[in-house]
């Protein structure tokens, strides 16, 4: 099984862990992430303005490339996942954006949102299946109480991303169970960490991340997992992270599958 893979800027750089553990795990699970050539940065935030076209084109090109390969497009980074899914939805359902984007790109055949965008977790859940994943776990993470931190970009808006229930998600909890650990459910798991505001106002972000740590540790979490390099950065800026480490979910996956060292 091959997937077109859109790594995104950060995974090539500061978040290489997210990327390499994912590839190693994928290999262990029997699928391959084929990085699409000459991908360009998604821009990090989805351009909400109805008249913004240019900023969506990099996503459109990636989507169209996957279409030409007749492959689903897989991402790992929350932000890329968010932007790609939303741009894809625009290409499918917003006639104006579709027409204009296609005019710019000049593909052989107009792109109309045909590609299916999947987060790596969705591949695990819907293609591999968490039951199957659990069978492949060689180092079950027994006894660990893990809090899934979703943040915002994986979940909202629920209708378009169609990733999980945006208010009470459970895909990462099911993932944690599949690895043999115990998920810790806490309310702040889908509340924003402060996002890019940490650039200009790091103090604000710290108040947000403190709330997240307080809530998750209150319910007994001994570590957190995330799919987002920005969340990772912000959470790690908090003092609490010294006691409650934050991992990319792929790292724990690789660990459970016994491929962490090879990666």
């Amino acid at each position, binding site marked *: 099984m091959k997937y077109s893979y859109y790594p995104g800027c950060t995974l090539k750089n500061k978040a290489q862990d997210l990327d390499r553990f994912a590839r190693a795990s994928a290999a262990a699970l029997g699928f391959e992430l084929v990085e699409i050539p000459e991908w360009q940065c998604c821009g990090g935030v989805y351009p909400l303005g109805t008249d913004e076209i240019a900023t969506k084109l990099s996503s459109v090109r990636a989507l169209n490339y996957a279409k030409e390969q007749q492959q689903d497009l897989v991402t790992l980074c929350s932000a890329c996942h968010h932007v790609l899914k939303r741009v894809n939805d625009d290409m499918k359902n917003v006639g104006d954006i579709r027409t204009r984007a296609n005019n710019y790109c000049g593909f052989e055949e107009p792109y109309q949102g045909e590609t299916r965008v999947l987060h790596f977790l969705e591949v695990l859940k819907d293609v591999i299946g968490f039951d199957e994943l659990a069978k492949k776990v060689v180092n079950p993470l027994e006894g660990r109480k893990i809090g899934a931190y979703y943040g915002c970009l994986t979940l909202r808006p629920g209708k378009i991303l169609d990733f999980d229930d*945006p*208010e*009470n998600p459970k895909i990462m909890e099911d993932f944690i169970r599949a690895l043999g650990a115990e998920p810790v459910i*806490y*309310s702040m798991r889908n509340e924003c960490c402060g996002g890019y505001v940490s650039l200009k106002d790091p103090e604000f972000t710290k108040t947000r991340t403190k709330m997240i740590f307080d*809530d998750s540790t209150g319910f*007994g979490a001994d570590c957190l997992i995330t799919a987002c390099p920005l969340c990772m950065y912000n959470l790690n800026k908090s003092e609490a992270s010294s006691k409650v480490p934050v991992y990319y979910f792929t790292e724990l996956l690789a660990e459970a599958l016994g491929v962490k060292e090879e990666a």
Partner: protein
Amino acid sequence: MQKIGVFVCHCGTNIAATVDVKKVVELVRYEPGVVYADDYMYMCSEAGQEKIIEAIKEYGLTGLVICSCSPRMHEKTFRACAEKAGLNPYMVEVANIREQCSWIHKDKEEATKKAVILARAAIAKVNLNTPLKEGESPVTKRALVIGGGIAGIQTALDIADAGYEVDIVEKEPSIGGRMSQFDKTFPTLDCASCILTPKMVEVNQHPNITLYTYSEVEKVSGYVGNFEVDIRKKARSVDADKCTGCGECSAKCPLGKIGNIPSEFDRGLRNRPAIYMPFAQAVPAVPVIDRENCTYFKTGKCGVCAKICPSKAVDYEQQDEIVTVKYGAIVVATGFDIINLDKFGEYAYNESPDVITSIELERLMNAAGPTGGHLERMSDHKQPKDIVFIQCVGSRCDSEEKGKPYCSKVCCMYTAKHAMLIKDHWPDTNITVFYIDVRTPGKNFDEFYRRAVEQYHVNYIKGQVGKVMPQPDGSLLVQAADLLDGKQIRMKADMVVLAAAIEPNPDVRKIATMLTASIDNNNFLTEAHAKLRPVESPTAGIFLSGMAQGPKDIPETVSQAGAAAVKVIGLLAKDHLKTNPCTAQCDTLLCNGCSTCANVCPYGAITYDDVQVMDHGLRETRRVAQVNLALCQGCGACTSACPSGAMDLQGFSNRQITTEVDAICR
């Protein structure tokens, strides 16, 4: 050739402002058949009608075209007017130049042109009209009420008291409906069961009322005055004639303790046995066996209830039974439920047992409820100190998947009631109500709400809650906004009560389809006229009572129930009804006897007989279609199915419609 009079109504300025009425008169005057044309300010007024009558007499008119509002509005008026002047009422056609012309077009020239075309079509049609005579059909003097809540109970009692027989069909094992689940009622804080139970008993004992509980309407056929209804009496597994209602069986059922069967009546807040009465005052006081959960029905073992029943009333062999009954009128009183809250994950209803709905709160406060009326948290059975009420959960919602666009109407009042009752019992409870608007139109309603604030010091905050977050310490963190003070609030609560939007009983769609009664986008039954015929369905013989028609409180429900009863009584008081003369008619000379029409007739009104016909001097016996005029409702399905054109519909004949097409396309 007909002698047609055309009358163009100004409808004040409703029509005249956009349609040049005089010009219409001028232009239609020369249409074939027209011998008279005039306009008037209000054609439907006494003076307007007088004008018509005079013209009929003076010009010997044989057909009328009224260019006015929708025929659904005043066709009847003008037909009656024609009849007064000795003209057959079915020689009248209405051109709808208000709803379908003046009200929707702005350009006067364009609207006038269209009005003329609509008038022409009507004139062309009248040219082909024939006098029709209404038939008569008898009325079955018995009414059916679907739903045994307070709405159905009141309607049935009122009809029965007037001397007519009434049957109530209730799908649950007992009548009583939602009201029987409530603790107290607003705005007088009467105990719900104290005022409802006597009515339930009265229903049970009334000589004119037959109760079908644990039963459902399965099939409806017929028409106003002559409905035929199949009622499925689901097997109770208990012989109602032998059962004394002692309750031994329920008490001994092994599943009562270990079965984990959530009680529907208590909204899942406690469990019930497999053989059960929903509540102590159930009417009839006869338990049912829930066959899906009962060990005996699942495995063939157990049988405890049958063994211990002192009157040997338990009957595992009982079968569903279908009874067919004839009715003259049917009242829909199917009531409501609250919406599913899965889409409101932000309020943690599914995550925390301490986030409950208002109906669950009713059960928790009810002395007969799962906690014996003691208010406690379902998580740790502690009495809550801080309670937050959230209003409009799913009401006034634009998104169809999440909620409902309408105001549920009763939540503001019952929340004030809940707040006061809690404060009355446990005065040191802190109560906060987050509202968007407090809506209290109704006698003594705003006073009631103000009492909650002024006397009981309930804290009302304008602003919707954003999120309810279960905390590690077991409390609930409520994040909200106080829009008036301009603050974001994060407050702890021990319990959160959600005023979930109400919605019509989900079964109503199925029932409406059987009754061919129309329902709106929200699944509420549509009334025949929003203002003037609020308790009737557009389908003749179907009446509406209670929440099935729209959100309303108990006093309103009872008033509407009475109003529906009066309409039913008015119908049943007649010995005969006039039938629609626009029925199908078969031209025996053209009919092939092929049975195609009978296959599509929804009323079984078409039969085939061998008749003697004379066709071009040739006498022959032929199999031809016969229309039973008492059964035919004039839908015309047969006419478009008929290959030979033998079937035609009076009042909407093939030629009449094609001539309208021609007139419009001229």
